[in-house]
């Protein structure tokens, strides 16, 4: 593997790992993380 290969791999993999970890961290630490979205209701199959 050439030096260019190491650089390409490190930058590419590093960027996507960094972005993913940062996003997950932001989602988990945001106030809405565990909140209920949209007022989930029981599944309405329309058969009642």
């Amino acid at each position, binding site marked *: 593997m050439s030096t260019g290969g190491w650089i390409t*791999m490190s930058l590419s993999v590093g960027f*996507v790992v960094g972005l993913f970890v940062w996003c997950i961290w932001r*989602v988990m630490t945001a106030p809405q993380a565990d909140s209920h979205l949209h007022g989930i209701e029981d*599944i309405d199959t329309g058969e009642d």
Partner: protein
Amino acid sequence: MTTGTPKEGWSSRIGVIMAVAGSAVGLGNFLRFPGLAAQYGSGAFMIAYFTSLLILGIPICWAEWTLGRYAGQRGFRSSPGIFYALIRHPVGKYIGALGAIIPVTIYMYYVYIEAWCLGYAWKSATGGLSNLGGDVAAYVSFWERFVGATEDGLAISPGSNGVILFLFIVFALNFVIIYRGLSRGIEAFCKWGMPALMVLALVILARVLTLGTLDPSKPDQNILNALGYMWNPGDVVHQLRNPQLWLAAAGQVFFSLSVGFGVVITYASYLSQKDDIVLSALTASSANEFCEVALGGMITVPAAFLFMGAAVGGFIGSSFSLGFKVLPMVFARMPFSEFFGTAFFFLLFLAAITSSLSMLQPGIAFLEEGLALNRKQSVALLGLITALGTLFIVYFSKDVKALDTIDFWIGTFMLFVMASVIIVVFGWVVGVDKAWEEAHRGAALRIPGFFKPIMKYVCPLYLLTIFVLWILFKVLGWDLSTGEFKPTGYVTDLIGPEYSVVARLSVGFVLVIITFFLITTAAAGRRWDKNRSDQRVRNETKAEVGQ
């Protein structure tokens, strides 16, 4: 305005992110991306890839989430309904019908490939693949028999390798999950399915990176050279001048993120105005990129190189060749082959099913909203439609012609059209200022300001350029070296003396599906118009009483 749709919603933010990420992460992350990167020289390819991600992929994701939630607040959950609300013209609902036609039609063949993945996982676990030896020709022959690629009708004949059983299982599983609804079905499945997929991929990655040199008589086929084959850049400046590289990179970003499918816009319609969409969209996209670049880019092509050396170059241009002809042999020859082979194909199966589930929801939402069907009726009707389509594709299995033809015209061509519609509606119909404001309601993150002109001008222009390039190269067969045009097989299969009956039947079948959805959309439009008119009368009556 009420549309009479059964009330549903997501139960948690992480759940909707996993569902959208599950929709995006598919077979292309592990089979198509690594092949393209290695083929075009990863240095130049990754520059084009990340450029496309920044100015095409992520902006369209934000646009889809925004438009979906905006229309959802106005009571619409299906793509025709969403565009009916957004465009405010009768033609809007017909444009939006594409958002139901595309995913439902793609599901018809995607579920068949999903069955291959489950079948290969089973065959790996029971030693059915490791028995084939070390010759790739045996695996090619096995795949052809398994999917019926040598003869129409072979896959459903008694002499097949049982693909129909796996198809039945995955088809039923998809519909059981979708029947359970958005939160208890799709979300619940993706919340464990996506982490499981990532854990499996990390285990396989650890195995591949520790393989070292497998055959002492071939010292060049070691893990460092394998990674080099995947990641060594070529002549970056020269390669960046190749328009086909840009087409491949942008196409990969575009298809990988599932933009223009009609899926994300449908999913987002179940969100409320208080829910963040900017960070959620970025997180779902980043999960897809993590699976694609950090996992897919490190596993499949390097593993194949370790066993085949540079000869793998003859297979990486096709996802089917890499995934179902080369990699089964690679995993079969690996230490603990049953475990790692099963893990890899189950990983592909998980990637596929989290995507196929998302393809059904736009159809379900449309049948419920447009025809006022209940969940059981809409699942039954969609099940019947997709079963007929899948049967068509499974029967006409020779050279996977029906699958390939429908994938080209619906899974690629129509996707470009739909994505263009979405970004134009965002930037020009709703208006970029209003859409920008809408995107930031409840947002946990602000989109950097420079994305505003990107979403209004750069993104549509870039998309149009890529679409034109795609037509020039993939439809009209432009040869860059000679400058001549020679229509590709997808055109000559339909027009001219060497036409293919199966290709023509496939396009005919697609036209029947489109007609069905357009007629249904017209019926739905009449209901929506009546609802709107009734609402107006009620408002006027209220106003008069108030006076």
